[in-house]
């Protein structure tokens, strides 16, 4: 137990240093800071605008009202904001690390290489947008005409944080293909294409696609299912199922990482 606490403290201090370094680096490139905010705003405008147009022609979309869809969109943006801040930059660098052999520098360090490649850079640029999405989420919850219990809201927020974790796990599983294919371009494109399924409530999909989206490609568990739990469309017990899938996927990732490292051929001298 004491060893576990020491490990957690050590990794926390390490992460704090990484965050400070990322902050200093971000402040050196202020224009990039502004461009990132503009990019995220454009992404959100496209997501919100599309549903605004669709709801101009219907009041319900597979049982979702416009206020409920706003909660779902805000939830998705919140999940996206979390992953943009905590893991996006690090994950984008992984294919280069593997192909150029720079992964060696992480493998020889006395900390988990998986931890280091996953959080090597914090997206300070996206913190502003994450705060905006928090405000939008709060507004959409406030705007909802139905009752929302505090317990459901707490579980909802926890599941959204888990949604960002699921995003990381799923994307890492796709990126591990770089160890074998030497190019992650196809798999990254496939991931960013499939993730669009997470931008829609899973109720609009057919039965078999919905089953896939709540199991081995858990995009619906990131924002759609948490929103449904909040709105009472599914039972609170489903939160345990989401946790189970996350734990299983994490175990799978750790195993896949270890197998992938055996296939890693350093390219550096």
């Amino acid at each position, binding site marked *: 137990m004491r060893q576990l606490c020491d490990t957690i403290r050590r990794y926390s201090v390490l992460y704090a240093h990484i965050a400070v370094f990322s902050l200093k680096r971000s402040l050196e*490139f202020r*224009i*990039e800071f502004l*461009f*990132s905010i*503009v*990019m995220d705003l*454009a*992404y959100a*405008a*496209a997501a919100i*605008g*599309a549903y605004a*147009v*669709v709801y*101009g*022609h*219907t*009041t*319900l*979309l*597979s049982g979702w009202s416009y206020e409920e869809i706003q909660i779902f969109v805000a939830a998705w943006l919140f999940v996206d904001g979390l992953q943009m801040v905590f893991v996006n930059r690090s994950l984008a660098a992984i294919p280069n690390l593997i192909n150029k052999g720079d992964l060696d520098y992480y493998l020889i360090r006395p900390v988990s290489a998986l931890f280091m490649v996953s959080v090597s850079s914090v997206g300070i640029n996206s913190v502003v947008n994450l705060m905006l999405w928090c405000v939008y989420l709060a507004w959409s919850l406030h705007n909802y005409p139905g009752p929302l219990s505090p317990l459901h809201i707490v579980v909802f927020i926890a599941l959204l944080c888990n949604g960002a974790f699921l995003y990381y796990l799923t994307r890492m599983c796709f990126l591990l293909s770089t160890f074998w*294919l030497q*190019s992650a*371009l*196809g*798999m990254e*494109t*496939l991931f960013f*294409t*499939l993730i*669009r*399924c997470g931008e*829609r409530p899973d109720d*609009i*999909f*057919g039965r078999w*696609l919905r089953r896939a989206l709540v199991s081995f490609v858990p995009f619906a568990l990131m924002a759609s299912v948490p929103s449904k739990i909040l709105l009472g469309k599914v039972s609170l017990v489903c939160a345990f199922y989401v946790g189970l899938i996350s734990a299983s996927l994490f175990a799978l990732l750790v195993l896949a990482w270890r197998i992938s490292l055996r296939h890693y051929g350093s390219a550096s001298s």
Partner: protein
Amino acid sequence: MIGILGIEFKRILFYRGDLIVRIVSAALVRIVLGYYLWAAVFAANGGQPVNGLSFDAVMMYYVIAALTANAVMIPVGVISREVYDGGLTKYLVYPISYLYFRAGTTLANCSVGIVQLLCGLLFWRLFHGTGGFDTITVASLLLGLISILCASLLYFSLLACVELLSLWVEQAHTLSLTVVFLVNLMGGIFVPISVFPLWAQAFLSWTPFPYLIFYPSEVIRGSVATWSVVGVWALTLVWSFVFILGAKILWQRGSYRYSGVGM
């Protein structure tokens, strides 16, 4: 130009797996998402046409738009990455303009996209039937392919203007992604422009975005009158000229700032 096309075709076809995954997955997911979204809308409104569009017509639009997007929307970040990595240096000694070279590679990518569009339409016709195909003719297809070539030029010139800003700022590729997100909504990929409110359609007609995906798709679908197609081409080329002019100015001023430190 033929030499440039040859080089780019070889480069594109070298990673065939990546190409197939990129083309098939992008188009397939867009079509599937469009299908389920509008199936839900039509189920909710009792199958009534939406702004005059039946479900078959909407689905036909999504199929064509998804395939058109593959042909028009070249991968982003090429120019900004070459500026950042220093890969631009080798192009400075080429006996042709860098922008002309990049336009040639865009044409090559568009040509590959046009082939996949024709294959995709044939596949859809064979496996889905004639629903939505009644307005598509050989003439509309040919006019649509010319519209796609014009749209591809417009998209390239728009992206070039944005990515050449990397000669001044470090990470301009985020602006390229901003353009992609805006095209997704205002270009008609997420939803057809014809289902937008009238005020939004009027506003968008003053922007270059509908000429990238929406109008070429509608020309192929046969829902744009022949003389109006000429108007679409004209406006697409006018916008292209504006952005090409901007790109040339940015290149002339920015190339003196380039230092090639990546090499």
